[in-house]
């Protein structure tokens, strides 16, 4: 052991410690602890990667990489389509970085995990209130996987295996659902992902339908009246799964629960969680009380301790894999803990009044932007209804326009062609409370110039 002390800053042992410990174990060297590894698989020397580096060097490298991307806050920004840029209060990020939240495991030991557990209980309540449902779980990976799990759950509940995905469901959600369904003998109806067609799903519901999945506001920004769809679905003993990708919308529009949805799934990223280039985000999952034992994912419940004091625990684990193994409701065990904490803190800061005000501002600014765009030759807003995102028909391919806008330092929305084939002339434009009048003006000017 004549190696110098390894100076890697995260490793507390030094060579003296190691020698003393090997001695206690009764082996001569560290290799002895790897004696069960087949000789042929024992790596000689180091893998072909750089050796350890100082924090400063790593930070500098990462900062250089970071600088090679254009961050949303540095330019006029109008992208949505499933990920939304909102202002996140500084309090949120501060709190989720507290050691006690950040570096705790899943709260399997409730006596020393009440911090996490109570926030989960509050989170579940907030999600239930927001969606208008009875109960919610402690979060899923993201909205798309929540959607896929909801379809699988509908099969368990209804014992039927046909699923209808509405034309306005986010194409990535449809794809993720298709992937999971493909191995589980769930048949998904062909769908034609275009604006203005969601109400047609009513015509496809039959007695064989397990569920119909409708997003509102949908991927084109349209607000869908779910009530008649729910009515028809229920008449055929099918479930209505309502989907949303923008939680802020629920501050202003009717909750899916009010409109008869049986399961509500959605993306919570818009509250508390940054864009993160697509992840981590936080999937929300809520349903009617009677379906609770078929719900996937972790749930937290109220109970009492040995003194009779209120406390919280993870519960209904008989649905989960570590008990049920191959009979589990889902293979999911990790939730999106820290994102779910961020979501619940943001919601607590907002409260009823704040969330509504935030939603109103989003809508107002979007209306203003829609008016500007409607005044531009070569651009037409297709939506009759929308919340903070709408579809614009352009006289040029949207992807090209977006690239030209990017060259001018504007991130001007998401081309529909990025999500699904065809409809190259459609552009999705999203406006939030972070968009300034100046941003909108600059965008309008640039768009007019490009389209002219």
């Amino acid at each position: 052991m004549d190696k110098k002390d390894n100076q890697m800053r995260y490793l507390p042992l030094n060579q003296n410690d190691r020698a003393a410990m090997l001695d206690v174990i009764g082996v001569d060297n560290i290799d002895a602890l790897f004696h069960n590894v087949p000789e042929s698989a024992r790596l000689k020397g180091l893998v072909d990667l750089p050796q350890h580096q100082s924090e400063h060097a790593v930070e500098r490298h990462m900062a250089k990489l970071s600088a090679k991307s254009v961050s949303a806050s540095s330019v006029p920004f109008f992208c949505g389509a499933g990920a939304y840029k909102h202002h996140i209060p500084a309090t949120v990020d501060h709190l989720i970085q507290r050691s006690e939240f950040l570096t705790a495991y899943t709260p399997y030991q409730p006596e020393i995990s009440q911090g996490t557990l109570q926030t989960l209980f509050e989170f579940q309540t907030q999600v239930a209130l927001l969606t208008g449902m009875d109960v919610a779980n402690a979060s899923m990976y993201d909205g798309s996987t929540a959607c896929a799990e909801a379809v699988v759950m509908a099969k368990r509940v209804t014992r039927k295996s046909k699923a209808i995905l509405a034309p306005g469901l986010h194409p990535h959600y449809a794809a993720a659902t298709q992937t999971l369904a493909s191995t589980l003998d769930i048949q998904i109806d062909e769908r034609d992902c275009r604006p203005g067609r969601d109400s047609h799903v009513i015509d496809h519901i039959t007695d064989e339908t397990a569920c119909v999945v409708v997003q509102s506001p949908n991927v084109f920004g349209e607000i869908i009246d779910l009530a008649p769809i729910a009515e028809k679905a229920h008449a055929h003993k099918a479930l209505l799964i309502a989907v949303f990708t923008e939680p802020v919308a629920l501050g202003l529009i009717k909750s899916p629960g009010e409109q008869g949805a049986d399961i509500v799934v959605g993306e919570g990223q818009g509250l508390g969680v940054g864009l993160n280039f697509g992840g981590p985000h936080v999937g929300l999952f809520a349903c009617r009380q009677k379906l609770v034992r078929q719900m996937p994912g972790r749930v937290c419940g109220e109970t009492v301790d040995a003194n009779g004091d209120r406390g919280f625990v993870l519960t209904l684990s008989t649905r989960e894999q570590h008990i049920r193994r191959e009979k589990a409701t889902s293979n999911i065990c990790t939730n999106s803990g820290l994102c779910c904490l961020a979501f619940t803190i943001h919601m607590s800061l907002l409260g009823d009044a704040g969330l509504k005000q935030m939603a109103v501002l989003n809508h107002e600014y979007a209306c203003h932007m829609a008016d500007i765009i409607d005044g531009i030759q070569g651009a037409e807003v297709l939506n009759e209804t929308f919340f903070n995102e709408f579809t614009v028909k352009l006289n040029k391919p949207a992807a090209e326009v977006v690239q030209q806008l990017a060259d001018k330092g504007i991130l001007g929305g998401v081309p529909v062609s990025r999500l699904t084939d065809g409809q190259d002339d459609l552009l999705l434009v999203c406006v939030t409370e972070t968009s300034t009048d100046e941003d909108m003006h600059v965008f309008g000017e640039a768009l007019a110039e490009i389209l002219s």
Partner: protein
Amino acid sequence: QTEPLIFEVGTPRRTGIDFPKPKGRATRLGGQEREGEIGLPGLSEPETLRHYVRLSQKNYAIDLGVYPLGSCTMKHNPRLNEKVARMPGFADVHPLQPQSTVQGALELMHELSHWLMTLCNMPAVALTPKAGAHGELCGMMAIRARLDADGASHKRRVLVPESAHGTNPATAVQCGFTVDEIPANSGGRVDMEALRAKISESGENSDIAGIMLTNPNTCGLFESDIIEIADLIHGVGGYFYCDGANFNALVGRVRPGDLGVDAMHINLHKTFSTPHGGGGPGSGPTVLSDALKDYAPLPYVVKDGEQFKLVETAKGAASDSFGRMCAFHGQMGMYSRALTYMMSHGSDGLKQATEDAVLNANYIQASLSDVMTPAFEGTCMHEALFDDRFLKDTGVETLDFAKAMIDEGYHPMTMYFPLVVHGAMLIEPTESESKGELDRFISSMRSLALRAKAGMVESFKNAPVYAPLRRLDETRAARKPILRWTPPADEAQAAE
């Protein structure tokens, strides 16, 4: 001190966030306006902040002390990772921005892939899976896609050792496979006789799709016959899925690609230290062998000259992809943390971390074997497994022992897992503990074991006493679940 629920302290119409006043422009909601209250409580910013700071202090955390939860790998979470994850070029970019505007983010993903593939000696990695179980799904989907492509759709049986994590069988089923359990031998490893028998019984046109095996396994033992196992499975046209939950025992010393593995997920949040955050988010990139790599899910990054490109649709080279697993590209926030962690360690530091993790576990096992009962003989890998024989006739059970650890200032170890051992206690110290901390921990465990043997049952049954709450009634919670707050009846009325 109990902390009330936000619903119990908030007042309507307060808010902790100010907005400019709306100007009252016309709406385009099509008559779908929400009416009435949502029911969310209103709190000012200071009230909200205090609520969460107080709640946080009711949590135990790796930053506070030893967290020896076996199979969970609670290691140091460097703050540099957090800083890097928040850099605007990673945290504040939209997944659907033009690719020319996210080159740095794509480059990071590409670099991460390179590190993972090199550490595993595997030719491909799918980054998108959002957690370990999602990675399992990814690997098993790829296997299924490959089987289907080869016209081997009759291969639907997956072998799973009985000691496996519950997610393994759950995943197999979710991918449309059936599960067949393989027993363990007395040494805690796969019973090779049984395995060979199963394989040969499956015959010429074997229905065996593959095996899902954790290595080191959930008993903390390296599967010494692993290469033969891989050969056997490959011999019947099956594939070898390795559960990478314990890859932290191998990094830098053993490469899964050298063991015949076809697919393995890597828990970035365990092995590479992205924080657990009270339950996630995780990230489960899955390395794939040559046989499987064409079936990787979308999207993925490729380097094209000096440019990085995102392959998003199943066309051209990607036409064999089994599809999309989630909306976007996976867990960027975990990628940046994991790469930061790996670069900080480097090839030498990663290897040293692995060795220290294994050393620490063996040190604990060696130091406790005279008072507790190791489940198996010989050295372990990164975690030490004990059973409850040493508690026989003491009246103290594994659960009691675990709860008593709380009063000693520690988080309990994993208990009753793996199921193959009676009253299992699985201790994983990780490489992040100093010898001093380990010695204190060992001394606490010894004194607990001796106390149990001395018949001091009471203190175990009452434990924990020094915790925010006493033992919680889990049965009650499950029997009549209360999963959300509801307003007290009178309050609900008062609000009309």
